[in-house]
C-alpha cells in the first residue's frame, strides 16, 4: 500500500484545521474531534484513530499543527506507552474502553512495575494477584511509580503463579487507581521534586476483564511497554517544532491546556533538566563570556559532538526502520547515549557556572535551573532501565555475547529475594 504524498497530506491537514480548529473550543471537545479525524495520532492504525502514517508524514502533520498553533492530543506521561501496549496486546474491548480517553487526556496513567525488591530485575515482582470469583485481588507494594498521584489507571505487573519459573508466573493488568485498596504515598527525590511514589495494595481489586494478554504471559506484555519506553529515551527530539511560536496563544483551549500542564504534567517539569539541557549550554557559554575559556570550549565541543552524534544515530535507526531494513545496532543504543549526553552536559554547565554551581534556587544560575540540571541528571541512567542493564542488553542481544549466569531458575517460590521495606515518604 503506497502512502499519500507529503504535499497532499499537508494540504489535507491544513484544510481540515482551517475548518475545525478553534481556540475557543473546550480542550476535551477539541481532542475528541481530533481523535475522530485521525489527525491526532496519524502514526496509529487506521482502525484505531490513526492513519498508519510513517514518521516523516507524521512530522509533516505536526508541523502543520504548529503553523496554526493548534493543540494536539494528550501525549504526556506514560499514556502513550500504555496505548502502545494496549494496541499490541489488548482486546477490542480494552481498546474501546481506553484508547480514546488516553488521547483526550481524560485519563491519566502510571506504570506499576518496579518494587522495593525488584527494579532492574523486574521479573522478580512479588506483588500478587489472586483470582477470587469475578475479580483479581491485589496485595503488595510498588515503588518509584511516577505520577501515581495523578493517575486513575495503572499498568500493573503482578505475580499470579508462585510455582512457575520467575518469568512465567507474571500477569499484566490494568488497575483502577481510585479505590480504597490503593494507597499512594509521594516520595521526595534528591532534586526536591516528588514525582514518584510508593503504592501499597491492600486487597485492591482488578476486574476480571482487565487482564491484558494471557495469564502467566505478563512478562511478554511488559517487554512491549519497556521497548517503547526505551525507544522514547533515544534522544530524538519530539517532532514538534516551534514554527508557530509567534502565534498568540489566546483562547479558552489554551487556558485549559495550561491547567493540564500545571497539574497532571507537573511531575515532568524537571525532565528536560535531567536530560542535561544541551540547548542551554551554548547560549549560556556565549552570554556569560565563559566561551573565552578554552577549557569551556573543549568540553562544550565534546558535548555537542556527543549529543549531535546521538541524534543522528537515532535518525539512522529511524530511517532504517522506515525502509524496512533489519534493525541495526544503532536502534538499541539511544538510552545509553542519552546518559552520556546528560552527564557531559552537567559537566559543561558546572564549568560555565564556576562557583555559582554551588548555589540553587533563585541564588543559583539561570534561576535555579542549573542546580536542577545537576541534581536531576543522575536519574537518566537509572530510570527506565539502568545503564548497566542497557549494556547487558546490548552485549547479549546485539553483540551476541553469553548471557549472565542465572541463580533464579526453578519455581519462583524458591528464588532468593529481598526483604521488603517501607521508605520514609515525602511527609515523614
Amino acid at each position: 500500500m503506497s502512502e499519500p504524498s507529503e504535499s497532499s497530506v499537508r494540504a489535507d491537514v491544513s484544510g481540515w484545521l482551517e475548518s475545525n480548529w478553534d481556540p475557543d473550543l473546550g480542550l476535551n471537545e477539541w481532542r475528541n474531534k481530533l481523535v475522530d479525524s485521525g489527525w491526532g495520532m496519524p502514526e496509529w492504525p487506521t482502525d484505531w484513530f490513526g492513519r498508519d502514517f510513517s514518521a516523516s508524514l507524521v512530522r509533516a502533520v505536526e508541523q502543520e499543527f504548529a503553523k496554526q498553533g493548534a493543540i494536539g492530543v494528550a501525549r504526556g506521561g506514560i499514556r502513550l506507552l500504555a496505548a502502545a501496549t494496549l494496541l499490541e496486546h489488548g482486546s477490542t474491548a480494552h481498546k474501546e474502553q481506553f484508547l480514546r480517553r488516553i488521547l483526550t487526556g481524560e485519563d491519566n496513567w502510571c506504570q506499576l512495575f518496579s518494587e522495593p525488591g525488584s527494579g532492574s530485575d523486574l521479573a522478580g515482582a512479588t506483588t500478587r494477584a489472586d483470582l477470587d470469583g469475578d475479580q483479581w485481588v491485589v496485595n503488595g507494594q510498588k515503588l518509584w511509580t511516577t505520577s501515581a498521584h495523578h493517575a486513575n489507571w495503572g499498568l500493573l505487573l503482578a505475580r499470579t503463579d508462585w510455582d512457575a519459573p520467575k518469568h512465567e508466573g507474571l500477569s499484566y493488568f490494568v488497575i483502577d487507581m481510585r479505590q480504597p485498596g490503593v494507597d499512594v504515598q509521594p516520595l521526595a527525590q534528591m532534586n526536591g521534586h516528588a514525582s514518584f511514589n510508593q503504592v501499597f495494595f491492600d486487597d485492591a481489586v482488578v476486574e476480571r476483564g482487565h487482564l491484558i494478554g494471557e495469564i502467566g504471559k505478563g512478562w511478554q506484555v511488559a517487554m512491549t511497554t519497556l521497548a517503547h519506553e526505551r525507544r522514547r529515551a533515544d534522544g530524538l527530539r519530539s517532532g514538534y517544532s516551534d514554527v508557530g511560536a509567534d502565534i498568540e496563544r489566546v483562547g479558552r483551549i489554551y487556558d485549559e491546556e495550561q491547567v493540564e500542564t500545571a497539574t497532571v504534567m507537573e511531575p515532568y517539569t524537571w525532565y528536560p533538566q535531567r536530560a542535561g539541557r544541551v540547548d542551554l549550554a551554548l547560549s549560556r557559554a556565549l552570554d556569560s563570556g565563559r566561551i573565552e575559556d578554552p577549557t569551556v570550549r573543549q568540553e562544550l565541543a565534546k558535548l555537542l559532538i556527543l549529543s549531535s552524534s546521538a541524534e543522528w544515530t537515532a535518525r539512522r535507526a529511524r530511517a532504517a526502520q522506515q525502509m524496512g531494513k533489519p534493525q541495526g545496532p544503532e536502534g538499541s543504543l539511544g538510552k545509553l547515549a542519552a546518559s552520556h549526553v546528560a552527564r557531559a552536559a552537567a559537566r559543561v554547565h558546572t564549568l560555565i557556572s564556576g562557583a555559582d554551581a554551588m548555589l540553587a534556587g533563585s541564588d543559583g544560575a539561570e534561576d535555579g535551573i542549573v542546580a536542577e540540571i545537576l541534581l536531576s541528571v543522575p536519574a537518566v541512567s537509572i530510570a527506565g532501565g539502568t545503564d548497566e542493564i542497557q549494556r547487558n542488553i546490548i552485549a547479549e542481544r546485539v553483540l551476541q555475547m553469553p548471557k549472565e549466569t542465572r541463580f533464579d531458575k526453578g519455581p519462583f517460590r524458591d528464588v532468593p529475594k529481598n526483604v521488603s521495606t517501607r521508605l520514609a515518604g515525602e511527609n515523614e
Partner: protein
Amino acid sequence: MVWPPMVSAQFHFTEEQDQFRDMVRRFLVDTSPTTEVRRLMQTDAGYDAAVWQRLARELGLTGLTIEEKHGGAGFGMVDVCIAMEEMGRALLCAPFLASSVLAAHAIALVASEEDAGRLLPSIAAGEVIATLAITEPDGRPGVDAIALPAERTGDGFVLDGRKHFVLDGCSADVLLVAARSPGSTGSDGLSLFEVAPDAAGVTRRALTTLDPTRKQASIEFDGVQARLLGRVDEAGPGLVRTLDIAAIALANEMVGGAARLLEDTLAYTKIRMQFGRSIASFQAIKHRCAEMLLQVELAKSAAYYAAEAMDAESDEATYLASLAKAGASEAYLHTAIEAIQLHGGIGFTFDQDTHLWFKRAKSSEVMFGDPAWHRERMMQALIVKERASSEAQMGQPA
C-alpha cells in the same frame, strides 16, 4: 539558534551504495588481508602496484570523485567515504587518501580548467600518483600554518623550504605544494604549485612512521622552479575545502577501522577461555564491548552526516568536518586501546594483528589536526555563526 546544523540528509545509504560497499569489501578481503598489510608495510613504496591498477581498472576507485570529463566516475563524497570506510576496515596500504582524495580535490578546487584537464585523467586512471604537500615541520594543521615562501621570479615561482608529513611523498609522481606569498598571513596569499619530484633542488626522505601502513615523507625544496596551478594568492578557500574533505574522508576510514577492531575483539572474547568460561561471559568485558559499540556507532553517524553535508554543499561543512574528525579520532583510539586490553598479552605481541589498527588509529588521530584542535575549530565556526545570527536579530525591528 541553528543547532545542530541540519542538512537534507538521508540517514541511510541507497541500494546502489550498499552494493558498491559490498563490491569494495569483497575486493579488499581478497587483496588486503593482514598478511598483505604486513608485507607491504615493510616495503618503501608501501603499496602494491598491481592492486592499485586493479583498484583503478576494475573498481574505478582511483577516480571516484573526479569529474567524468576528466576521466573519473563523478561520484560524491558519500561514495568516497564508503570506500574509505572499507579501506579502513581492511587497513589497505595504498595512496588513495594522498592521490584520489587530497590531490584530486586540491586540483579540482584550485587549479585552472586547463591544468585540471592535464592532471586529473592520469590520476583518475591510477597511472599517476599525486600528493599534496601542505604541513610543515612544526606539524601545525590547517592552512594558516603554511609558511613555505613562493618567490616570484621573472615569469615563474621558486620554492624554498621544507614540507613534512607528506603522505606517500616518496612514491608520488606529482607533488602539489601549498606555499605562501611572502608577507601574507592566514588563508590569504596562498597558492598551489606543481613540482616534479625529480626537479632540481627537490630532496625527498622517507620518514620513519609509528604507523608503517601509511608512508610519509619529508621534502626539501631548495630553490625549486614550480608551476603555478590556478590563480596566484587565491588557493586559500580551495585548500580549506580540500582539508575538510580529507578530514571527513579520514573520519570515515577511522570508523571502518574501529568497527573492524570491535568485531575482531568480540570474536576473540568469545573463543578465549579463562576460569572455565569464555571471557565474553564476564560482565566487565560485556560492558566494555557495549560501550565500544556505542562509541563506534556515534562516530559513524557523525562521519556519515558530514559526508552528506559536503555533498549537499552545506555551509556547515567545516563545522561538521571537524566534528566528525574529532569524534572518529576519539572513538577509534578508544576502541584500539580496548581491543589490545581485551586481547590480553597476545594483544601486545607483534604477531597478533590488533596493533596494526592501533597504529593506524594513533596516526590518524593526529593527522590533519588532533581532536583538541578540531574541537577548537568547530567551536570557532560556531561562535562566528552565533554572533552573526544574534547581530542579524538585533538589527531587526522588534
